């Protein structure tokens, strides 16, 4: 990783809509160099997507989320990867992490309704023969995601002008 690539990651993770010319000014590189670096980051699958953080609670969509602790049987030769792949293939699954501790996979699931989510767990996830147990916890409220506080009421506490 070059310094430029690192700088770009720091900038883009906060705001990926900054135009190329401003990225160039901010990093001190030329526009061509910035464009190349970003292309490399994308090609190497370091940058996978440019997506906003959305507060869904403020939309009119029905949406429930749950975090499911899943215990699984690792597969010969493939360890946990094959099991994880079976699980992340479901559209309902937003994230899957292999965890240390008392369970194996943490699965973040999203559905329209509680019923839909419960059905996913009971009819799709639990029935996988490699899954030996699940514990589902529903998300009640989201306060902060990816570094962004949803209802940030803090104001700039600084005086307007100080010398």
């Amino acid at each position: 990783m070059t310094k430029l690539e690192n700088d770009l990651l720091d900038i883009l993770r906060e705001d990926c809509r900054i135009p190329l010319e401003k990225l160039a000014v901010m990093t001190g590189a030329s526009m061509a160099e910035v464009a190349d670096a970003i292309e490399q980051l994308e090609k190497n699958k370091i940058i996978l997507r440019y997506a906003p953080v959305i507060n869904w609670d403020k939309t009119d969509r029905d949406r429930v989320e749950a975090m499911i602790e899943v215990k699984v049987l690792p597969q010969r030769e493939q360890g946990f990867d094959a099991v994880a792949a079976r699980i992340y293939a479901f559209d309902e699954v937003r994230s899957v992490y292999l965890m240390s501790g008392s369970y194996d996979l943490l699965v973040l699931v999203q559905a329209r309704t509680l019923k839909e989510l419960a059905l996913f767990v009971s009819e799709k996830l639990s029935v996988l023969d490699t899954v030996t147990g699940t514990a589902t916890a529903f998300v009640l409220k989201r306060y902060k995601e990816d570094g962004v506080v949803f209802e940030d009421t803090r104001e700039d506490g600084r005086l307007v002008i100080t010398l």
Partner: protein
Amino acid sequence: MNYDRYLNASVAAVPPSGIRRFFDMASTMKGTISLGVGEPDFITPYHIRDAAINSLLNGETQYTANRGMLSLRKAVSRYLEERFAVSYDPEREIVITVGASEAIDTVIRAIASPGDEILVPEPSYVSYSPSVIFAGGTPVPIVTTAETDFRLTADALRAVITPRTKALILPYPNNPTGAIMERADLEQIAAVIREKEILVISDEIYGELTYGGRTHTAFGSLPGMMPYTVTINCFSKSFAMTGWRVGYACGPSEIIDVVNKIHQYAILCAPRQGQAAALEALYAGFANGFEDVARMRESYDRRRRLMVQGFRDMGLECFEPLGAFYVFPSIRSTGLTSEEFCQRLLRDKQIACVPGTAFAPCGEGHIRCSYATALDKLNIALDRMAQFIRGL
């Protein structure tokens, strides 16, 4: 009742800060984006705040030693040695003060007698000259200009030294210009100091914030300069700790003893929780290579480049600042004075900047813009300023 006869005439003669009216105007205008703020936009890192909370929970509510907690002075000593190659004895050569402001004031009071001249490069932070006057001394300005990148030159220094000159204030990296002094510049100053034997009060509070591959050189680190140098620094700018009010003065014990005498009568000690927080800032920094400082510096640097380019795109002459978090573009080409420019910009576009004249008469023709503001706001501010200038 007329209080004039009760008030200290020399203090009363010092004008109040020149931006009061402007400040009032800016404070009441809705939607103002301020580029006039002289402090970081970061909140003190959480682990530092947590250390102060723990200090309170532990019941640490008493005075500390006048000079500050010995553990903090030891940490400051190590910090200055590791980061800036200056070595101070924590027992005898360091006093923890209520911000750098108190350090500036007490150091000046410790050395200035009536009739003594203290040299103040300008434009610079607003407290030096008043402190000299309060102490009964005479401030002598040295004008610096964009032609020399607002650096102090040996010639300019030599030209103002008289037999009454006691000390030079060395305010670099500089507020408001963002200028720095590199080692070669400082060596030329050191040669004059060696010859004329005057003291240097080196205000290095922005020492962690230098850019463009430059690192700060502490004046005391130059050969032979320790005996002449009082180093002033603080936690405000480097660690985003302005409201905690913790700074320090370091120097020869003969001077620091007197600084401490004033400090113990006037202040007693810097606030204890501020000291606890400062200690955590340094301990954590030793452990992780000052990553908080590096993170903030990187962030400032990106915004610095954006601002300089933004002003140049507007057609304003803008010398490249390599320190602190200010840009000091020239607005002479608009035909407006600094004050007119800032007032109209505020009224028409709700952008607050500080007229260069708030820092010294020689700041005329410039405005100080702080880039310690969120990136999206800086972009809006630059757009509005460009519109403003096009509309002139």
